[in-house]
């Protein structure tokens, strides 16, 4: 399976590079904000009586104990950051497999500029559209049940991807109407709402986090689109 091998090699290479670069960006952008927020999260956990805390609904999912309580978690510092880098590399490889698969199906040379456009489409599908309904949240903010949010997130990404494909690849008027409707539909249905409850996390911190996530994600998808297109072209057509 030569095409499969080319896709996997290209995705592994692009994902490794982009995963490391984006980790560096996150250590300056999102990670300090997450750590600041966890100070408020811990304060809320220790300061509020458990009954009142659970009543608020759902900083925790279905009453499950939070990750800070009993289960394994990486130690702060080197170990935690190493896992962040590893998770970033894996995520980048996963999304790069998606992009390289598309490039293979295109069946012709995908330039770095076309790769950039595919990357930006990834940004719209996997960051911009889901973030409209479920803005990036810091630890300790009130949220709806996890499974409901995951379901809405995945459905929104799928509908946005389908809608964009119809808009771009079908020139007919019905496709444009259906494509736009598909993109709008998840937002008309609405994302699962967080329960009304007080959060210790300051609004300014939360706002900075939304901006930081959006910018690092824009960088991630731009780099991944370009890196995957270059790697896939080099690996699948080395003679050119």
């Amino acid at each position, binding site marked *: 399976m030569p095409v499969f091998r080319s896709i996997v090699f290209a995705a592994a290479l692009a994902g490794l590079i982009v995963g490391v670069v984006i980790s560096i960006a996150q250590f300056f952008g999102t990670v300090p904000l997450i750590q600041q927020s966890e100070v408020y999260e811990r304060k809320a956990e220790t300061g509020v009586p458990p009954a009142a805390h659970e009543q608020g609904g759902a900083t925790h999912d279905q009453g499950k104990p939070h990750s800070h309580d009993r289960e394994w978690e990486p130690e702060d510092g080197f170990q935690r950051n190493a896992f962040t880098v590893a998770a970033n590399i894996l995520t980048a490889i996963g999304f790069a497999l998606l992009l390289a698969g598309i490039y293979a199906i295109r069946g012709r040379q995908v330039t770095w500029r076309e790769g950039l456009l595919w990357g930006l489409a990834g940004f719209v599908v996997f960051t911009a559209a889901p973030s409209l309904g479920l803005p990036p949240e810091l*630890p300790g903010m009130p949220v709806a049940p996890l499974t409901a949010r995951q379901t809405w*997130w995945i459905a929104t990404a799928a509908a946005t991807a389908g809608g964009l494909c119809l808009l771009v690849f079908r020139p007919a008027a019905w496709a444009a109407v259906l494509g736009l409707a598909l993109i709008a539909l998840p937002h008309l249905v609405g994302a699962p709402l967080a329960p009304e409850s007080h959060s210790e996390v300051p609004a300014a911190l939360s706002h900075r986090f939304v901006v930081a996530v959006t910018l690092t994600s824009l960088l991630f998808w731009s780099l991944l689109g370009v890196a995957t297109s270059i790697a896939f072209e080099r690996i699948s057509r080395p003679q050119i």
Partner: protein
Amino acid sequence: MQQSQSARLSAIAVDSNVIAQAVLAMALGLFIVGVVGFSHISAVHNAAHDVRHANAFPCH
């Protein structure tokens, strides 16, 4: 359009083979993202915690 029938058929056969391999790779990619970003296993959640928040994946 100018291709002969047999050349077109073999081109379609090659294409569907390429598409099958590409779809397989894409499914693998989605599986990896699913485990890192969406798995409910607590250890996986804790290991990838900061990345889930930074990617705006739904998290605890």
